[in-house]
């Protein structure tokens, strides 16, 4: 589905990602990306989704090199993302924004998305006026419209409680399993990641540290030293 090849991204002199290789194969499997703050997790999603041009390397999506494609092009071909900092339409109602995006992507079944993200009670509310936790769900809901093939979620649990995060992860895991799509979830709540992801990648200081099933990652000595050590 997605092949990342020696991907590097720099912000001036900050090398946020250095020669990262990664393959997201899984249909129906949630792929978690963890790592300390500043490891380059958001930068990875920015590069894949087209928000930020890589300084080197290539991104292939469904067999095609898309490194230089526009954001909107990627979205129309099934690559969708949500944002670490809520990025929704504050002055539109929840229904207005979901239907506008659904119109663009030719999706006539937003009721599915509304149900999955449990937004039924907020449809007529302006997004800027609803609780932060619900706004997070709107952010994810916007990414779910149009039946994307590849879902990229950047800390969907940011600002949610541990239980809310876990519940959101379970929702997404079920959805990904049902629709047999690929999904990458960046999260620093490692418990939710180990509980719901089939594969986990660890980034540290802009480099790829390890990829494997949760049990392998938990036991990996380098990961424990670099990241889990303090948490575990």
């Amino acid at each position, binding site marked *: 589905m997605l092949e990342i090849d020696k991907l590097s991204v720099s912000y001036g002199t900050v090398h946020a990602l250095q020669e990262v290789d990664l393959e997201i194969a899984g249909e129906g499997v949630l792929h978690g990306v963890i790592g300390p703050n500043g490891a380059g997790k958001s930068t990875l999603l920015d590069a894949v989704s087209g*928000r930020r041009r890589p300084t080197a390397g290539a991104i292939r999506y469904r067999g095609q090199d898309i490194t230089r494609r526009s954001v*909107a092009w990627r979205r129309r071909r099934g690559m969708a993302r949500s944002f670490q900092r809520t990025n929704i339409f*504050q002055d539109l109602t929840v229904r207005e924004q979901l239907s506008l995006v659904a119109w663009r992507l030719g999706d006539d079944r937003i009721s599915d998305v509304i149900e999955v993200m449990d937004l039924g009670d907020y449809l007529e509310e302006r997004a800027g006026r609803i609780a932060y936790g619900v706004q997070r769900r709107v952010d994810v809901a916007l990414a779910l419209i149009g039946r994307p093939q590849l879902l990229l979620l950047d800390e969907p649990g940011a600002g949610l409680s541990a239980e809310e995060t876990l519940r959101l992860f379970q929702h997404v895991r079920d959805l990904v399993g049902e629709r047999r799509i690929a999904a990458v979830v960046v999260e620093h709540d490692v418990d939710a990641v180990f509980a719901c992801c089939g594969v986990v990648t660890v980034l540290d200081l802009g480099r790829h540290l390890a990829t494997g099933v949760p049990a392998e990652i938990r036991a990996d000595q380098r990961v424990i030293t670099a990241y889990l050590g303090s948490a575990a």
Partner: protein
Amino acid sequence: MNGQAATRVAYRRGAALVPSARGSRRILAGAAALLLFTIGAFAPQYLANDFLLRLADGGLLLGILALSIAFLMSQAGLVSLGAASVYGGVGYLFAIAMSQWYLSPLAAIVASMVVVTVYAAILGALIIRTTPLAFMMLTLAAGEMISHAVLLEGLRDYTSGADGLVVSFGGTLFGLEAGDFANSARFWPIVWTAAWAIGSAVWAVRRSRLGAVLRATRQNEERMRFSGFDTYGPRLAAFVLANVIAGACGLLHVLNSGFVSPESLGLGLSTNALVSALIGGTATSAGPLLGGVIFAFAQDQFGAHGLTQLLTGLAIVVFIVLFPSGVVGAWRDFAQWIWRNRNREAG
């Protein structure tokens, strides 16, 4: 699950009720608009003297120009300071097309509108991607360039420099002679009809999918792209439409005044139109049109006291502080407030 099913049923029942109520209200609103249009088109010629009509003609022209600015402001969040350069520029084009290229009046109108459209598309393509502040400064720069171009010595044969051009035509245009357009009473129904037509067109665009896309883009351009939208094309289309409105308004102006001069291109006119838009409110079609008329009458009153600049400045401050959404916006809020209170008492 049960709750959701119940909601769905309630929605459906609501759906059956709402359109009929809304439908009858729509018919009522349509009839009221038609009545207002008809009365407005003919009554002033019998009630007002030549001086007042002339003021009203000018005010409505200013209002149409203000509508062009307000449309771009409210839909795309962009303030243009170059409206007058198109408004006046189209007058020059019209005059030159007839006198130098020997086009008929109608062909000259078509030619000058084509030039305006192409100009707006090229300028827009260059500047629409910048920040709102840069956009404003670039429209100002482009406008100033046009104002200076008409004063160039090399173009004097075409533009007559600072003297301006007398614009007249022989024969008829849409069955009217040049003298008809110049007559304040006969021009009134023309500009009134144009204001309604342009106002309705803007109203329709606002309610269309394009309007929804523009407003969402204004709110969050990045999320629009991440939702698969092209955010460049719609904004370019809005910019071109705003310029076409300014151009049409400029043609009406030149037909009415029979004269075009560097003043009609200047920044002063652009800012007057901007102020008119703010007075009336940018969110509706009626707002800027009314704002233009208010502005024209107020200027006349202020001028009578010899205090035009001072009182205009004062009025602007008062309006922006007291009625940030303009006269029409404030009126709308007031009507909604009454409506809500009445409903509360009834229920």
